[in-house]
């Protein structure tokens, strides 16, 4: 499922070459930073969704 999805993203951008040729090896810093960034983004997204949902229910003052 994920492989098919990633392949379709690669095809979408009309990237030449195979997936293997586009591999990268993250540096030590990147290895640590990227997961932290992704977690921060997910948490921020959750916070925004919760605020919007509460606004929809009338519990939180509307933010839009």
């Amino acid at each position: 499922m994920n492989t098919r999805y990633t392949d379709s993203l690669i095809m979408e951008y009309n990237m030449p070459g195979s997936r293997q040729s586009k591999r990268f090896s993250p540096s030590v810093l990147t290895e640590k930073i990227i997961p932290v960034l992704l977690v921060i983004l997910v948490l921020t997204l959750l916070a925004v969704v919760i605020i919007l949902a509460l606004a929809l229910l009338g519990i939180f003052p509307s933010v839009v």
Partner: protein
Amino acid sequence: MTYIPYLSTIVTFAFAVAVFNRYRQRGGVHLLLWAIGLIFYGLGTLTESILSLTPSIFLLRIWYLTGAMLTAAWLGMGTVHLLVRKGNTAQILTWILAAVSVLALILVFLVPTTSASYDITRPASEQYREIFISSGFLSYLLAPTIILNLYGTITLVGGAIYSAFLFWRKRILVNRMFGNILIAAGALSPAMGGTFLRAGLTDMLYLSEFVGAVLMFIGFMMATSTQSEPLPAT
């Protein structure tokens, strides 16, 4: 700092042109929908800019429709087209969004206004409730506004985070991974603008719109650039 909406407008329309040019070259409904979403984004910041110069209820309605209601949903719809390839779910959702957008247009222009005059020294998002009559039509307007923003934020930001995660896990296409991280961060920026406004940080609201447009533009350029050399391991 009221010049910031002008900068946001320039960046957003340049971004819309870049996305539309890519659509013309390569096709792809997602690119067309992103371009439409960016035009709404640009119209929102453009009307915001003009409203800081001259009061206009008509422009306030356009600002609410494009900036507050439609931008996130149409951008998110583009991401849905990119991610949901099976069946015709994406097409059906697009038609539903188009119908809701037409309904929103009608509702926005039917909202009666009070006698309160528009204050050009304050942002539109701070005073539209004082100008649109808060009972009746506005109450019908708030629910679709929130639902459209929920849908747009979840699909656009969630889709970008998911894509970045897949590229990270498979260790492929580093430019696309960073591009999606920037797109997610950029899309979240204006979503948090309302919180800044409630905290009395009006300038931060304008800044969040500008930062959002810039981050998403850079993210898009990164994600669509052809990376010839893999990132060296250290």
